């Protein structure tokens, strides 16, 4: 299709919709963080850097995202490894199984954890039945972390799996025929080749963690709120728009930085896959 007007006409509706309701509004948020009623101002940014609350919440968001991503990779990698060794047909069914929770609303999935972890919840009543004292998990960072891992794990498993399936199986066989033990073949050949896929999954997970709102709001206490919740509070309770915009800008910049890292990793990945090494 070399017809310019047709191309333009095809793109116009979507570009208009996304331009008016995505790009321009976000640019508006960016400008709101540096423009006040009286023109250019560094007020909101200064407020952001000077505010203890926002620094604490930013730090907490970072740590929650990091721990959740690491846990997801550590739990997800062996699962993906198991799936990579199965027949194509069986693997396809297991992919559906892994994706099943993905089709349940996040709100619902989070809500279930209230039932499981709550004071009168399933875990505590089971503990009580055996004579143990109840544990406080709901409304702590731990509850938020458990639920986030459960929500994000399918993504990490499938990303790891995709990179494992890219690996040329002949490489492992070659290592074995050259005298490596199964463990050596795994550690020296398979693991390094699949590591970039695991890292990719971890970064996607990290990026998605940064934006979590429902889970910390429902399962966390007052002291487990993440940056999304803080933005919400600034808008709906403190009515401090400039500050909310500065927080959103910070969140946007961090997300974009992670995406840049992600692109760097995925670009490097092709040379490790079967296409690069195998030929």
């Amino acid at each position: 299709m070399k017809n310019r007007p047709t191309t333009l006409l095809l793109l116009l509706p979507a570009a208009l919709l996304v331009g008016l309701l995505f790009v321009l509004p976000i640019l508006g948020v960016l400008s709101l963080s540096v423009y006040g009623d009286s023109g250019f101002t560094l007020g909101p940014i200064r407020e952001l850097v000077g505010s203890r609350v926002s620094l604490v919440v930013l730090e907490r968001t970072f740590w929650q995202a990091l721990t959740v991503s690491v846990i997801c990779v550590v739990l997800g990698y062996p699962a993906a490894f198991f799936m990579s060794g199965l027949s194509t047909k069986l693997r396809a069914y297991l992919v559906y199984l892994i994706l099943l929770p993905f089709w349940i609303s996040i709100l619902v999935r989070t809500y279930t954890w209230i039932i499981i972890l709550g004071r009168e919840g399933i875990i505590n009543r089971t503990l009580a039945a055996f004579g143990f004292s109840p544990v406080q998990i709901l409304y702590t960072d731990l509850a938020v972390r458990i639920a986030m891992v459960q929500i994000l794990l399918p993504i990490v498993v499938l990303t790891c799996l995709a990179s494992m399936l890219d690996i040329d199986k002949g490489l492992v066989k070659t290592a074995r025929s050259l005298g490596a033990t199964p463990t050596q073949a795994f550690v020296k050949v398979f693991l390094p080749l699949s590591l970039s896929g695991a890292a990719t999954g971890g970064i996607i997970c990290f990026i998605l963690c940064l934006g979590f709102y429902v889970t910390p709001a429902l399962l966390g206490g007052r002291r487990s709120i993440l940056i999304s919740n803080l933005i919400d509070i600034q808008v709906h309770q403190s009515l401090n728009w400039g500050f909310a915009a500065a927080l959103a800008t910070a969140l946007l910049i961090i997300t974009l930085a992670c995406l840049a890292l992600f692109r760097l990793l995925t670009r490097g990945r092709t040379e490790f896959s079967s296409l690069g090494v195998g030929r």
Partner: protein
Amino acid sequence: MRAVLAVYFTVLVLFLILPLIFLVPISLTESQFLEFPPQTLSLRWYSAFFDDPTWINAALLSFRVGIGATFISLTVGTLAAIALVRAEFFGKTALTAIFIAPLILPTVILALALYIVFLRFRLVDNVLALTAAHSVVAIPYVVMLVSGSLRRFDITLERAARVLGASPIKAFMLVTLPYLVPSMFAASILAFFASFDELIITLFVSGGAQTLPVRIWNDLGLKIDPTVPAVAVMLTLLSVSGMGIGELIRRRNERRYNTITSAEV
């Protein structure tokens, strides 16, 4: 080693589907309160949902907004996908990234941004504006699925139609479009549920209007009665069956049109 991994994998899957394991029995309780396992089974809380006009209205609003957002995102997204696959132009990568971006960027940023715009143009509590906002969240699915399917399409079929005398538009409409229909169907199911599940943007811009997720959200703050599990089970049944049907249709179509491999061999 294999056995250990298999056991581990089973435990992991159980952890993943834990919500379903508990949700279904809890929603079937007879009691006033959440209990697991339920003493007596009943559909009491399912009928409670249908007897409460606020739940019904929330569900109806969600359907209205969801269907509208699906229609908008499917139309504009499919047109854009055609241009993105078939045409070469400056800034194509950047434009693709922007269409996909709503899926990746933290939703709260978009929610805040839209809230500011909606306040300025008095669009808060406007169902049409909410529908348009939801269609932005749904577009990534349409662009990804339809452009993916179009890329797999064997273009020689369309060329054959052209050689046999069809105009470019006619060739596209009669040959390529039928091939795209199943992926458009799958995309519209994903788009619908992207809207149907959307909470954060709706909380920011809907004013007082309650979609189903907002109604659930508001209910969670007040009391915990078993209506929410009942709604959750119904929602899950709806989305799992919808996506299942979409996937089945997509796979059947891929098999029918599997011409590329045979052409290349």
